[in-house]
């Protein structure tokens, strides 16, 4: 490729994956076109109630990302749009994007909702899964970005007959609605494309024995999410949609549209076990009486990080019932109940009635996405998912086109987010030469120095159309504000957030020499940055501003009490005026940034990460404690999809060694660490010091050394890794019987987590043995087979090829004994209910993946990053920040994070690179500056603040005998300030004086 590459990326799909990838790219120097087919970004997450395994509210954790993404200067959000064609080559694509007319101009629409109140047309609300109605002019969900309405052309009366309606036009004082709007086609130049169109839920009505659509009170899991949601059709009140009765008994049916070869859905949908447990647990929480919940399943697949503990808690503490079975049929029972006919493992047929049954529907690729992929020549697998190229995590068959999230296979949110960052990482590496060429930065006029000036406050009270003015007496509030101390201007605005209002505020600042501004309108959470922008454009420091919320927290919640609401609005304005009078300019803090990287761990994860960052142009120091690179992969021979792991590994090591940007240190460990993001100094055991800006921990894990099943006593008992080497060496080519035992050292009281890869690994091993010696008998003794995703195909294949699966339970483990010429395994079979004896030549133990505890504890202290109970590293957020630590500038990937297979580790390593690049791309570290400040004279150096600070940003300085704040790390939470007895600590932008001034307005 001779042409220069283009520094922008097209991200297709604005679910959590698209949002994450866009933010990663935009923050690391690339312009992003985020193309989304629906009218709002967010994808499926906004529709979910809580998320496993943290039970965080889905919307609550998503919304900060929505705002960041929506407001980002370098992300061009294109809603109601689709990619229709793509030409060119990696680094230089021309993308044709069609934007369907929305009939509402998002630049003018303020999201006030007056139009929707007037609209006479009621439509099933897709967002609520049709459980409630919306109007023909609608916003996808309450917190949607863009915060703008759209018209459903097929339902709007005006499109059927131009004279028929037009009520919305009258209601909209912002004049944002235009029924004449036309579809547009834009051609965009982009360097790379990331496909993240998400998934569709399986249509449960295709399987008539589940009765969906026929038997009342059989609903899907997505419908159930909406029922649970506080913003859902029933306000979070757990009732049956059919008769609004509170259910006392709910069942979940697993694998609806998954693990079903007859229906061409042979794969496992990976997420349903966990979401069903979560739904059962949350349903119990929502229910005022004792709720009986039962999950009907085949294998419980809680293989992810912290999932097994969630499962155990649900079972033991929350009393969720788990029924291992096969469901035959759901029929209508009495009083709207649902009757389940099912078979237990022993073959006995059972019946049970429930008030409501939730079908745990699986995931399938979106039809449009499949069409698009075919058009672009992207290879799809047998299920029409765009499975990534082996051992790439996220690469498609086309260079420069990446795939992430559920389109490449069913996966949960953390893995989706991980892949999104990984795809961003790959795009960053591909386009590194064009970094920063298309991104924009805004220029502002010089800031006016207001120090020593008399307070001159301007107050702007917003009508928000009728949203505020319909309840609150705005002119009254305006007059009231005129009399408040320091106020020199008080006026009203129809929409304070509109373009022309912004211009008027800027003019008023100049005309009246305003040095403080108060806007009384809506929530600072959504609008403060916008108004602060206006101040900056007018040459005022953005912190000389207060936004007080007289809409969301006043007019909207006191609609029937206009007088009292007006009084409240006055109080709120007075509080803001008092607070802003004491506001001082806050300057962002800038610190120098070292752009080098330290990667700890030279396994596949560490190497993949190092290579990506080196390709991005950063200097990487790669530290490995062994003498050789490679890590635990040196013991792997066969990938789960049949890849040649050793060949891959050698090639990777070769690439590392050839790369001029990578310096490798073998036989070294970390001896000491100083500093923080942008300025780390790490000392190695031989005394060498490395200065670096970010740290990536990729220290891996180990194979558990079994204490059970005669391991170490009888040479025929081996771990899976040992067995793999023997197979590769041909030592098992004449074997007759092999028994593979699952969950050795996993899922027990000592290690209550699932090691995730062993089931698939064992089945792969069994198939390898069968391939080499078809007549060999291979037994797999298991507790649950956890071949998630497409690995389910391997399970199917193994059964077809005669691998024998016998389930045992934790309290009745197999017994291994020495006998002449071999070994005897006794296991109680669950189908027969009787002990079975197997005489075998070899035993393979699927032994757990265990963290190197001491090493992890050491690094945990050095880099101030936490470990979980199992002593794996613990990320900043299990759901949305899977490779970050809350300590800035430190990232992780691979087995140090938890058990994962090679493919997943590679993906995570790229994700850590994608995330690290967002830090590395900055010239300097810049923080907003609303940090804690210490008055040294008052400080008695007691150290309470140091103990309390969650960001580890404050420390007692021995010399000074006072606490010192590291502004680069301080998040401005103020916990130090409120715990300081001596009053020595204050918080910029929210000082004690300001809070007192607000309280004195009461």
């Amino acid at each position: 490729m001779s042409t220069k590459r283009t520094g922008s990326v097209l991200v297709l799909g604005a679910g959590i994956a698209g949002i994450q990838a866009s933010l990663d790219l935009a923050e690391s120097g690339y312009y992003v076109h985020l193309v989304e087919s629906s009218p709002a970004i967010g994808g499926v997450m906004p529709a979910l109630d809580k998320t496993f395994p943290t039970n965080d509210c889905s919307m609550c954790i998503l919304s900060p990302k929505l705002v960041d993404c929506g407001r980002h200067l370098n992300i061009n959000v294109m809603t109601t749009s689709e990619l229709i064609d793509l030409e060119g080559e990696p680094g230089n694509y021309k993308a044709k994007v069609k934007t369907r007319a929305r009939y509402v101009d998002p630049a003018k629409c303020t999201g006030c909702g007056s139009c929707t109140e007037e609209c006479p047309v009621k439509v099933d609300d897709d967002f609520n899964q049709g459980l409630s109605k919306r109007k023909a002019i609608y916003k996808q969900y309450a917190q949607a970005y863009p915060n703008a309405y759209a018209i459903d052309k097929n339902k709007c009366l005006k499109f059927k007959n131009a004279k028929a309606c037009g009520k919305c036009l009258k209601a909209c004082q912002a004049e944002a609605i235009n029924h004449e709007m036309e579809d547009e086609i834009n051609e965009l130049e982009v360097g790379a494309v990331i496909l993240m169109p998400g998934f569709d839920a399986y249509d449960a009505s295709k399987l008539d024995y589940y009765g969906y659509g026929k038997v009342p009170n059989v609903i899907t899991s997505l419908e159930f999410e909406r029922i649970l949601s506080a913003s859902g059709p029933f306000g979070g009140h757990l009732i049956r949609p059919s008769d609004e009765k509170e259910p006392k008994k709910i069942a979940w049916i697993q694998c609806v549209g998954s693990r079903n070869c007859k229906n061409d859905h042979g794969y496992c949908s990976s997420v349903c076990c966990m979401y069903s447990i979560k739904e059962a647990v949350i349903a119990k929480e929502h229910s005022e009486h004792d709720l009986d919940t039962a999950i009907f399943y085949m294998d419980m697949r809680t293989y992810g990080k912290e999932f097994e503990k969630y499962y155990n808690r649900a079972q033991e503490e929350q009393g969720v019932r788990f029924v291992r079975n096969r469901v035959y049929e759901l029929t209508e029972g009495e009083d709207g109940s649902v009757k389940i006919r099912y078979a237990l493992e022993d073959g006995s047929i059972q019946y049970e009635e429930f008030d409501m049954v939730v079908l745990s529907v699986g995931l399938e690729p979106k039809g449009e996405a499949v069409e698009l992929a075919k058009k672009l020549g992207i290879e799809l697998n047998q299920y029409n998912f765009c499975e990534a190229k082996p051992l790439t995590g996220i690469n498609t068959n086309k260079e420069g086109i990446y795939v992430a999230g559920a389109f490449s296979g069913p996966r949960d949110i953390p893995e989706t987010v991980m892949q999104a960052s990984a795809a961003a990482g790959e795009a960053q590496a591909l386009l590194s030469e064009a970094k920063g060429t298309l991104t924009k930065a805004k220029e502002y006029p010089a800031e006016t120095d207001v120090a020593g000036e008399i307070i001159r406050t301007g107050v702007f009270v917003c009508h928000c159309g009728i949203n505020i003015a319909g309840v609150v007496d705005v002119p009254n509030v305006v007059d009231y504000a005129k009399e408040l101390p320091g106020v020199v201007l008080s006026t009203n605005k129809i929409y304070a957030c509109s373009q022309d209002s912004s211009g008027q505020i800027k003019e008023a600042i100049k005309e009246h020499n305003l040095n403080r501004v108060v806007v009384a309108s809506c929530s600072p959470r959504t609008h403060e940055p916008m108004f602060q922008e206006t101040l900056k454009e007018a040459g005022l420091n953005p912190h000389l501003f207060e936004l007080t919320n007289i809409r969301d927290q006043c007019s909207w919640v006191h609609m029937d009490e206009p007088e009292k609401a007006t009084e409240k609005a006055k109080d709120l304005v007075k509080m803001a005026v008092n607070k802003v009078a004491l506001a001082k300019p806050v300057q962002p803090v800038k610190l120098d940034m070292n752009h080098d990287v330290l990667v700890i761990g030279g396994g596949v994860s560490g190497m993949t990460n190092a290579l990506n960052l080196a390709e991005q142009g950063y200097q990487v120091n790669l530290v490995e404690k062994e003498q050789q690179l490679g890590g635990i992969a040196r013991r792997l021979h066969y990938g789960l999809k049949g890849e040649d792991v050793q060949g891959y590994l050698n090639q990777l090591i070769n690439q590392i060694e050839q790369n001029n940007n990578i310096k490798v240190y073998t036989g070294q460990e970390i001896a000491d660490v100083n500093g923080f993001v942008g300025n780390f100094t790490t000392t190695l055991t031989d005394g060498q010091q490395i200065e670096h800006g970010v740290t990536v921990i990729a220290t891996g894990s180990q194979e558990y050394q079994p204490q059970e099943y005669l391991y170490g006593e009888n040479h025929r008992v081996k771990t899976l890794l040992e067995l793999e080497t023997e197979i590769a060496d041909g030592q098992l080519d004449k074997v007759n019987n092999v028994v593979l035992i699952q969950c050795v050292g996993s899922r027990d009281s000592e290690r209550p987590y699932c090691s995730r890869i062993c089931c698939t690994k064992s089945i792969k091993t069994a198939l390898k043995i069968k391939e080499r010696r078809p007549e060999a008998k291979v037994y797999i003794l298991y507790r649950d087979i956890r071949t998630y995703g497409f690995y389910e195909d391997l399970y199917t294949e193994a059964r077809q090829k005669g691998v024998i699966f016998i389930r045992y339970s934790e309290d009745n483990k197999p017994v291994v004994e020495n006998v002449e010429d071999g070994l005897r395994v006794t296991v109680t079979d669950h189908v027969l209910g009787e002990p079975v004896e197997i005489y075998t030549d070899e035993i393979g133990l699927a032994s757990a993946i265990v963290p190197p505890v001491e090493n992890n504890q050491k690094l945990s202290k050095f880099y101030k990053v936490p470990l979980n109970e199992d002593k794996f590293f613990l990320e900043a957020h299990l759901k949305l920040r899977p490779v970050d630590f809350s300590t800035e500038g430190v990232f992780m990937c691979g087995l140090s994070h938890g058990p994962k297979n090679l493919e997943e580790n590679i993906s995570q390593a790229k994700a850590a690179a994608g995330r690290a690049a967002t830090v590395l791309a900055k010239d300097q570290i810049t923080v907003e500056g609303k940090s804690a400040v210490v008055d040294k004279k008052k400080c008695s150096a007691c150290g309470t603040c140091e103990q309390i600070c969650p960001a580890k940003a404050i420390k007692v300085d021995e010399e000074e005998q006072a606490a010192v704040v590291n502004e680069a790390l301080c998040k401005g939470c103020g916990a130090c300030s409120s715990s300081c007895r001596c009053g020595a600590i204050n918080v910029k932008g929210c000082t004690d004086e300001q809070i007192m001034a607000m309280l004195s307005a009461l």
Partner: protein
Amino acid sequence: MQKLTKEIQDTAKKLLEENKVDLVVGFAKGSLPLRSTPYFARTAEQAEELVWNQFCENNLANYLKKREEKVAVVAKGCDIRAIVALIKENQINRDNLYIIGVTCQGMIDRNKADELVNGKEILETETNGEEIVLKGKDLEQKAKVEELLYDTCTRCAYGNPVIYDELIGEEQPAKEPNFEDIEKFEALSAEERAQYLAKEMEKCIRCYACRNACPMCYCDTCFVDESTPQWISKRANSAKDNLIFQGVRVFHQLGRCADCGACERACPMGINLSLLTRKGVKDVKETYGYEAGLNPDDKPVLSDFETDDPQPFLMKE
């Protein structure tokens, strides 16, 4: 008592002579009966002045903060709890401190003695084991020491120092902390409690003797003296502000108060201050199983967070 005095003097002399410390902080005979006074001995001769008796009520931890020199301190159980708490807060450098721990049976409350003799002037006292003789003009009143002890001392469970470099005196029998006084207060209705506190707070003259006597109150600027922002009025005429002063003091003492009673002993108006501080002590003990100043190595309880911490304040129906 004579024996203890002798032992303290000998230890102090030895430490000073061998230059192990520059200063010994202890008690000397007071100028009035029923009183001992804090005393700084810098030479072996001065160490001869040191005494130990049942009037050594002051909390000497107060004199040890932010000292550069090497210091020895004669300290009873409650003093040492305060010392431990102060070590945690970087106010005392343990490396420069030599603790002469003295076991303690409690200190005598002058007010109780005065009451016993109906306000007659006591000029001299004589202690014989568990008995004390109060002498004066036309006065010779015998009393049991136990009956004259400060209330704080009778409830104290830490007669034996928790840490020390040298221990003087006989080990005291183990006791459990006693919170009967607080339980009684808690049993009152909200209104009764408010009334009681309002009555007590009306007495306050804002002399801040309580604050100055407290070893844990060491801020350079106390919040009551702040002017930006001015949290409360600086005058004593509002019982409500007086209560805020004491209330915030209790907040500041949570998990730190060694329950030595110095605040209450210092109060010239006889306000029942330990009621407030001890309510804090009791709540912290009940909620977190934590008592201040017992273990130099643990983290102060309110600076620490465990996910399984009890959070009863969140659970109350």
